[in-house]
C-alpha cells in the first residue's frame, strides 16, 4: 500500500482509488484517517460510501465464500481418483507399449513381407489359372494311370511330348508369344492324385520365376490377359 502524508489533500481520483478498501475495511489506520479527513470535501463520494456500505452489508451476508468452499469440497477427492485412474492407464499403456505394440508391429511386418506386392500375383498366377487344365482329351484315364504308374522313363517322355504338343497349340499373340520364345514362359506338366487314388495329369503355363523380375508389371498383366483368353479346350 502506498504511504500517505498525514492531513494532505487528496484529489477526487485518489479518493476513488481508496473508496472500496475504505468501505470494506481494508485500509490501514493512517490511510483511513487520511480518507476520512478528505471525505467531507467530496459529498458525492460520501454518498457512494453510504450506498456501498448498505449493498456490501447484504453481499457479506450471502457468504458466497463459504458456498464456494462447500461446492468445491470434493475437488481434492476427485483429483485423487483421477490421478489414480491415470496411473492405472499409464501402467496399461506401458504394458501395451512394451509388449503388445512391438508384437503387433512384428506380425504386421511379417505379413507385409510375406504378402508383399512382389509375391502377390497369386490371383493372376498363370500356374493357378491353368492348374485345372487337365488333358483327358489326349489320354484315356486308364492309359494315363498306366503311364504314371509306370517306372519306364519312355512313358514319361511320351507324356511330356503329348503335353508339349498341347502347349504348342496355345497361340499367344503379342507379348505372350515373345516371352514363350525367350523361355520365360514355358509349359509345365505334372500329375496329381485324387481322393479315389486316380492320377490326373495337369498342365499349366509356367513362368520362370527367376526371370519374372525382368517383366514390366504392365507386360505381365498383358500376358496374363492373353493366357486367360485362350480357349484351352479348342
Amino acid at each position: 500500500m502506498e504511504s500517505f502524508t498525514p492531513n494532505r489533500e487528496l484529489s477526487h481520483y485518489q479518493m476513488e482509488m481508496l473508496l472500496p478498501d475504505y468501505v470494506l475495511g481494508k485500509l490501514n489506520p493512517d490511510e483511513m484517517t487520511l480518507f476520512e479527513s478528505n471525505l467531507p470535501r467530496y459529498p458525492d463520494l460520501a454518498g457512494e460510501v453510504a450506498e456501498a456500505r448498505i449493498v456490501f452489508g447484504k453481499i457479506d451476508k450471502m457468504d458466497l465464500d463459504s458456498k464456494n468452499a462447500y461446492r468445491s469440497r470434493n475437488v481434492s477427492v476427485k483429483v485423487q481418483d483421477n490421478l489414480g485412474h491415470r496411473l492405472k492407464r499409464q501402467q496399461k499403456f506401458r504394458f501395451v507399449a512394451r509388449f503388445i505394440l512391438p508384437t503387433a508391429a512384428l506380425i504386421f511386418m511379417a505379413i507385409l513381407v510375406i504378402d508383399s506386392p512382389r509375391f502377390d500375383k497369386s490371383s493372376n498366377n498363370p500356374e493357378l489359372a491353368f492348374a485345372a487344365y487337365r488333358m483327358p482329351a489326349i489320354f484315356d484315364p486308364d492309359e494315363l494311370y498306366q503311364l504314371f504308374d509306370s517306372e519306364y522313363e519312355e512313358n514319361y517322355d511320351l507324356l511330356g511330348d503329348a503335353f508339349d504338343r498341347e502347349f504348342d497349340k496355345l497361340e499367344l499373340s503379342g507379348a505372350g508369344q515373345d516371352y514363350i520364345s525367350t523361355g520365360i514362359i514355358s509349359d509345365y506338366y505334372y500329375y496329381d492324385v485324387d481322393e479315389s487314388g486316380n492320377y490326373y495329369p495337369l498342365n499349366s503355363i509356367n513362368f520362370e520365376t527367376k526371370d519374372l523380375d525382368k517383366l514390366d508389371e504392365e507386360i505381365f498383366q498383358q500376358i496374363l490377359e492373353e493366357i486367360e483368353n485362350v480357349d484351352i479346350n479348342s
Partner: protein
Amino acid sequence: MNGASLVYESDSEIIRDYCSTGSEKAANAFVRKYQKFVYSVALRYLKNHHDSEDAAQEVFIKALGNLKSFRGDASLSSWLYRITANVCSNMKRKKKLLSFFGESERDDFLNVSSSGPSPEQQLVGKEFEDNFMEVLSGLPVKQRETFAMRYFDELSYNEISEMLGTSVGGLKANYYQAVRKLSVALRNL
C-alpha cells in the same frame, strides 16, 4: 485460500515433498489448500458448477504434473490462476463449438445459492443474490476479476497485479468501478 493444508506449513514444503516422493499426502494438501480459489475463479469464467468442478480437476492435474517446473518466480496462486484461466478459456471454446452443434448446457452461475447448507441463505433474499451474480457476471473481465480476487480471495494488489498483468493503479481503478457499479445496480433491492 483454504487453510486445510494438513501438516504442511508452506507451499514450498508441499512442493518439495511432492516433487521428491510424489507423496499423495502432499498432493492432497496442495489441492485442498487451493481448491476453493481455483473453483471460484473457474466459476466466474464458466458460470456453471459442473464445468467449474471439471475445470478445477483439470487445473490440479496439470499443476501437479508440472509442479517440478514451478520455479517460484511468481506465487503459487498466481501460477494456478494462469492455469485456471487457460483451462477455462479452452473449455469455453469447446462449449461454444458444442453449442454450435446444438449441445449446450444452461449456465447455473446465477443459481449458485441453490446448494450449500448456508444458514444465511434464509436471511438474505434470493432475489438479491441472483441480481448480484447477474451484475457481477456482466462486469468487464478485469473489473470482475479484480473485485472477486480482492473482495472474496482477499489478495493484495501486488498479487492480483501479478495474475492479471495490470498495474496496481489500474487495479484500483477497476476495483472502484466494480464496487460502484454493484452499488448502483443493487442499491434498491
